[in-house]
């Protein structure tokens, strides 16, 4: 019952935390570019403004896809706070990702079609990496459940350093940060307009932004699992990781999806294989 309560609290608080994270992200990005940047609550204003727009839809099934996307993101965050099965959380999250793509593919617009296909390639790129990271966690703790990680007396990071880097790759792709902002990015890009987001507008876009907030929180939550033994350690890990994400986002250009698939799969698989072999060998630090 307490777990259920945690889930509810998590689902309610996550978007607010998400607004702060994304707002901070935008301010820091602006600072890196020697600008001042928007107010901290800018993501909230954006979502509210979008919610107030007059509805306009490009396809009758698009709202359905968006609602399912948001719901899947919410459920996966709830399951995370309820300390459920990691693999299952990931699968539930994937439901949302798939509906997000389907919604974009519904509309016969070249931009959203190309964006949808690119988004699929992004899913293709990060999904195996995350499964491998989860397999690594399983090998170390003997369980896919989150509570097994909290029962550890040493941070996961010590024995899974390479898998953490792999996870970093997956995180960057999932958050659509450069160089992996291939299917859509925060600002429009010439050849793709807004890619997978092009045909979503008004309320639909607001809901998608909400879902993004949930996903950001989920990903940071997964990231926090690598250092569960001390709250300061966890905070440190999260801050450093996210800061690195922002820096990478600012210093990289977007690359092509072919490059992404090739380079991320090779590095990701090699790194996780090395780390997994280490775990299989039974050696522990």
């Amino acid at each position, binding site marked *: 019952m307490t777990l259920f309560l945690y889930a509810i609290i998590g689902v309610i608080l996550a978007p607010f935390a998400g607004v702060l994270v994304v707002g901070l992200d935008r301010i820091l990005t602006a600072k890196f570019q*020697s*600008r001042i940047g928007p107010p901290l609550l800018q993501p909230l*204003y*954006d979502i509210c403004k979008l919610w*107030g*727009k007059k*509805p306009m839809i490009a396809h009758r099934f698009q709202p359905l896809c968006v609602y399912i996307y948001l719901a899947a993101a919410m459920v996966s965050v709830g399951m995370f706070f309820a300390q459920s099965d990691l693999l299952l959380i990931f699968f539930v999250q994937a439901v949302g990702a798939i509906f997000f793509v389907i919604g974009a593919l519904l509309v016969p617009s070249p931009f959203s079609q190309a964006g949808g296909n690119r988004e699929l390639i992004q899913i293709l790129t990060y999904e195996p990496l995350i499964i491998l990271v989860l397999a690594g966690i399983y090998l170390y703790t003997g369980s896919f459940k989150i509570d097994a990680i909290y029962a550890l007396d040493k941070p996961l990071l010590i024995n899974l350093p390479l898998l953490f880097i792999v996870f970093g790759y997956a995180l960057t792709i999932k958050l659509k940060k450069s160089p992996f902002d291939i299917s859509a990015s925060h600002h429009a890009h010439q050849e793709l307009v*807004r890619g997978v*987001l092009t045909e*979503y507008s008004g309320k639909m876009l607001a809901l998608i932004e909400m879902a993004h907030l949930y996903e950001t929180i989920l990903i940071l939550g997964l990231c926090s699992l690598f250092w569960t033994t001390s709250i300061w350690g966890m905070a440190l890990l999260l801050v450093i990781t996210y800061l690195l994400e922002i820096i990478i986002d600012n210093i990289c250009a977007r690359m092509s999806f072919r490059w992404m698939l090739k380079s991320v799969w090779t590095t990701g698989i090699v790194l996780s294989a090395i780390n997994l072999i280490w775990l299989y060998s039974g050696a522990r630090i």
Partner: protein
Amino acid sequence: MLKKLIEKSQIKSPWIVHYDCGSCNGCDIETLACLTPLYDVERFGVLNIGNPKHADVLLVTGTVNHRNKKVLKNIYDQMSDPKLIIAIGACGLSGGIFKEAYNVVGGVDKVIPVDVYVPGCPAKPEAIIDGVVEGLAKLGELQQQNKTDAIAS
């Protein structure tokens, strides 16, 4: 409360789409200059979103001619309410020095309703930012008026 928040947000988060009707690119360069660190319009929540379906503010530069008036109208139609139209530069206002040309319709307001006119040849970035702020103030007035209308009725 939500309605209040939405109204506040509408002022605080103008997303922009920029359409060049046939300008000499002078105004366009000045418009894009607004995004640079020197002017940093993101302070006001402005994003160059590049997609009329997401945008709240349409910045139009250049003279409208018979060929591109349909495109202009089309972009206007694809933006959802509430939306602001800002005409930039002498050409956008009236057709400028091309006004008498055989293929020119005239200013932007010949095709779509314009909320704010930003003069200049080219318009200065400060003027353009001022224009957007003016437009947002107009939006605020509109919100007030809607409220009093609602109370009156």
